[in-house]
């Protein structure tokens, strides 16, 4: 089945149901950290394809360049030097949007249509609907979206939805010289990851595993980790990511409750109008009041 999806599965701040009849393949990006050499070709290809050029920065003493994700740098290699069992390991993680199945950014977003999730699993920001509130930054369990100083709108990786829509792999996947990046149906990616994990285990990485955190119902960007029991070793990859309880409280029951209270107020006013009617004052009373207030 083609990767293309014209169907939106979820849309921020929208209560009407989304189309669900047509079937669509769920896609996924698989990042095999054990095969990454940190060349940053994916960073360059990402900027080239998406027409982004981030400002030329300065060396901050580490290999991370740019030092953090920005509105114009949607993916960044994070380098960690790990001393483990007397061996030095260089862990290089390609950071960027994880495309959660249960996206915290989308749940937190109050602007209708600013964040959508396609039926193939890609979570995309539509900046023309973005109001720049930054709630998606709070909602994201992976600290990915960035607000632009230029237009005060939030930006992040789109998984090259325009390429995927025409059956092409994302720009980062295509360029990867070592083949550390893979793209395809989520099922196929999980299968490929299994083979890689068997290989890594045979090479002495007993805890090798797949990072597809259930806290966000799985992600459409998955990692093969040499140390799946310690994801935090990879530049602070969260052990068990979950959407912030603040978002759940606000969107889960505070907002419906507030809407309920508002609706109850409207209903109560209507009932009052029907039962009691407008407050009518007879001509006599009015005259009396006028006489009372008139100075003598």
């Amino acid at each position, binding site marked *: 089945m083609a990767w293309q999806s*014209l169907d939106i599965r979820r849309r921020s701040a*929208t209560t*009407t149901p989304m189309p669900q009849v047509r079937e669509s393949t769920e896609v996924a990006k698989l990042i095999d950290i054990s095969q990454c050499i940190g060349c940053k*070709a994916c960073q360059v290809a990402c900027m080239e394809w998406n027409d982004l050029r981030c400002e030329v920065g300065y060396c901050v003493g580490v290999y991370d360049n740019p030092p953090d994700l920005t509105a114009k740098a949607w993916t960044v290699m994070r380098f960690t030097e790990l001393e483990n069992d007397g061996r030095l390991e260089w862990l290089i993680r390609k950071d960027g949007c994880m495309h959660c199945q249960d996206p915290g950014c989308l749940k937190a977003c109050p602007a*209708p249509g600013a964040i959508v999730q396609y039926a193939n699993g890609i979570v*995309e920001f539509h900046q023309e609907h973005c109001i720049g509130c930054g709630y998606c930054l709070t909602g994201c369990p992976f600290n990915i979206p960035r607000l632009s100083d230029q237009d005060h709108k939030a930006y992040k990786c789109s998984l090259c939805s325009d390429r995927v829509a*025409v059956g092409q792999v994302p720009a980062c996947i*295509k*360029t990867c*010289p070592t083949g550390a990046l893979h793209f395809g149906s989520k099922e196929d990616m999980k299968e490929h990851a299994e083979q890689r994990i068997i290989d890594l285990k045979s090479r002495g990485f007993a805890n090798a595993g797949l990072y597809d955190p259930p806290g966000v119902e799985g992600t459409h960007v998955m990692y093969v980790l040499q140390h799946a029991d310690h994801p935090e070793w990879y530049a602070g990859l969260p052990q068990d990511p979950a959407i912030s309880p603040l978002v759940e409280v606000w969107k889960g029951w505070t907002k419906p409750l507030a809407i309920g209270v508002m609706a109850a107020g409207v209903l109560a006013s209507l009932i009052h109008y029907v039962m009691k009617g407008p407050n009518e004052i007879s001509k006599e009373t009015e005259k009396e009041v006028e006489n009372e207030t008139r100075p003598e």
Partner: protein
Amino acid sequence: MNVTRRQFLKVTAAGLGSSSLAMLGFSPQPALAEIRNFKLARTTETRNTCPYCSVSCGVLIYSLGDKSKNARAEIIHIEGDPDNPVNRGTLCPKGAGLLDMIHSASRLKHPEVREAGSSEWKRITWDDAFTRIAKHLKADRDAHFIKTNADGATVNRWNTTGFLASSAASNEAGYLTHKVLRGLGVVTLDTQARI
């Protein structure tokens, strides 16, 4: 326009009510897929070789228009050539950023010469450049060509000039390079394709 107090209140209430309804989600915008259009549709695809290192990866160059008379071509995107056996579609960070090298303001686009004693680079035509190179080569070859060695055997060596061939050259271009240079007697012939 005369508006009574009652009319004013009615209009205000209606406005407030309808905007509240919209806020409650009763009037959503149509939910349509809004994927960016694929920017390479109907662009011209040209195959070429990456100029950076000796690996010589194949690239696909995408340019605006269809090469028609009035369409001005402009390179807008470059990615790896999947049919090239060297890189099979992949590119390193330098190759992936080729687009910016092509559009770089400091890119050398024509032959230049700096005459002996001058500190200025002067633009010359390709014809002038080739003539100049040929003259220099001929002068050097005429002065230093070794026809025979000490024993009188014919060797036809030209030891004072070397040649660095391109690693991006095809088999055919490589064959021609070899034939021409060996025919002239050049011994020091190398390519950059050895890293």
